[in-house]
């Protein structure tokens, strides 16, 4: 029975690391763990050759005058595949610190508090306040009275990801001048994110031809076929588009 605890104590390395290294090396070389431990501890020749690797990496130099971070973390330890030329596992040699990582004494509370405040105000200003209902002017509204079937169609419009290519957002810019009335903040359409295809805010007012729209959704022209939709779902989607006017 291999006494890893004693060996670890003798060698000055953690038992778990020693056990893992010995077992891996022993398995790779087909030798016994006791034999290997004896070789490592006593300097006996290794039973088999293995690729060499540097036992430890030299700690990088510290910049003159800059205090090194005295982190208690250490770099070198037992290699997974122990090198043949280094029969003794690397021994920790005093407090090894990563000297290139120069920190300063600081509490993280300031970072936490400051960033939380920025997050709070960002959400408030970029999303919450602008989303609040704005006072109605009474002149007109972008809230369309969709039928039940159309609202089901809107769900399908969302599920199919139509908003990835189509907008239902007419802006107060020259580019959108021919599309219809400018979209107001009370709109209940799907704004979308980019116009790979045309804007569909007022598609119902541009075409009365349901058959042409249906063909488009089935893959006619340059529009890709919307797959996996039942006839009822397709009818709902068409209803939504027709009532978008």
């Amino acid at each position, binding site marked *: 029975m291999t006494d890893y605890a004693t060996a670890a104590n003798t060698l000055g390395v953690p038992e778990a690391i020693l056990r893992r290294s010995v077992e891996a090396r022993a398995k790779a070389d087909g030798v016994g763990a006791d034999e290997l431990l004896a070789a490592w501890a006593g300097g006996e020749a290794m039973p088999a050759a293995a690729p060499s690797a540097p036992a430890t990496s030299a700690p990088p130099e510290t910049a003159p005058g*800059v205090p090194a971070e005295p982190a208690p*973390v250490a770099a070198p330890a037992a290699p997974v595949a122990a090198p043949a030329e280094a029969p003794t596992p690397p021994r920790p040699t005093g407090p090894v610190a990563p000297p290139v990582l120069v920190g300063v004494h600081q509490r993280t509370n300031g970072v936490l508090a400051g960033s939380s405040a920025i997050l709070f105000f960002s959400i408030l200003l970029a999303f919450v306040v602008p989303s609040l209902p704005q006072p109605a002017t009474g002149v007109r509204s972008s809230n369309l009275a969709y039928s039940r079937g159309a609202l089901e169609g809107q769900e399908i419009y969302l599920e199919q990801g139509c908003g990835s290519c189509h907008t239902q957002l007419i*802006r107060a810019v020259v580019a959108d001048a021919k*599309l219809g009335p400018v979209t107001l903040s009370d709109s209940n359409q799907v704004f979308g994110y980019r116009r*790979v295809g045309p804007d569909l805010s007022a598609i119902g007012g541009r075409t009365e031809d349901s058959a042409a729209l249906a063909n488009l959704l089935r893959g006619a022209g*340059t529009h890709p076929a919307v797959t996996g939709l039942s006839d009822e779902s397709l009818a709902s989607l068409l209803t939504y588009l027709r009532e978008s006017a």
Partner: protein
Amino acid sequence: MRALLLASDTAATRYLFAAAAWLAIGSLTWLAAMLAMRFPGLLPLTFGRLRPMAMIALGLGWLVLGLGAAIFYLLPRLTGAPLALEKLLNRALPLLILIVAAAMAIVGLGLGDGREPFALPWWLDLPVLGLTALALGPTILTLSKRQEGMVYPSLWFALVGALWLPVLYLAGNLPGLSALGIALSDALFSAGFLNVWAVGVATGAAYYVVPKVSGQPLANRQLARVGFWSLAFGAVWMGVSQFAAGPQPEWLGGIAGVLGLALPVAGLANTTNLAMTIGQKWPAIGAQPVLKAALAGSSLVTLGSLLAALAGFRSASVLVGLTLFWEGVWVLILSGVALLFGAFAWQAVPNLVGRSVDRSTHQVVKRLSIGGVGTGLLLVLAGYTSGVAWSGAGFSGAFETTGAGWSAGVGLAGIFSGLALALFLYLTWGMIGLAITIYRALTSGKATVQEVLVVKQT
């Protein structure tokens, strides 16, 4: 004197390798999405389904798990305390992978909610919220037990990334909002996720690996502070500009334009700091893919942030809003994050598994850099061109005659997007190559020194 094991690094290792697999899957899905956008009808799934699927694989699978791995790797090294909740993290990983896979499948089946970037239905938002919160508990608990009094800049980025991500996800997926509320919350989350989590945590990792690999202390802590706080201030404002001249209050565009300027400031500060850290060792940079990747990645992020900030001005935002310009910005920034992730992974993998990464990393840096810049700028040009065409002739009215959008109607934009697709292939090759380098270290990497964290007890 004895040395006791400080941390086993099992969570960092497992999350890193899981993330590499999702990077490969996500890259291929993203390529499919770009193909579906440029050639509608070519693939059985539409761009509308493929894009969120790609974002799920890349955003949740690669970036959340992979940058989570970066945080788990950095925390014990910078705090001197063992990583908290490591066993829980290890046990949760299969479940998290399952959630990402299920999310992709559900959106692919056409059951998503259409909200960007992930389009997840409300009943999947709760488990995904848990996924986005995975780094928060370990970060707070490990920091509370830290043995190291000094705080290194990487910790700022890790802490803020872990804290902001679940809050942003919650804010970005609230149910029952108006159409305007949905658009703004989606823009808030998308921009925050990209800038605070992806760019922030990856930059924090670069602040660790560049000094370690170059052997030079960080050049300027104050510059790191500028980079950090600028990123926090400007993070969420990128998205709002996409809806310029829309129904949101006018003051919002002004705030977004001003605070959006903080993003390139952050990029410039961080890139300069990393470059100055390497300093006189610059001539030797060719031999160090980690340094090359970190610098190239930070530069790409800066370029993307700069373009986003320029597009925040009203005169520009009304031109490029809702166009592929923003897709180009995302490509630039995500390519930069891929390079920063590569820098972290190539430094960490030998320490985690005791095997070195091979020299194909140089090729990966080249492919990610050229592919990222080329694709990103061409998409930006495509967006700009279509924006000009819109302004000139009310372009979207083209539907009445051609039945199609800009890609078929505007020749120059179509050419640019076609060229972008060609370069996107090169970028995809680089992203898959990055994943392969991580796995190849495990399967055929040469044995090297494995870093094991210990504390000394006398």
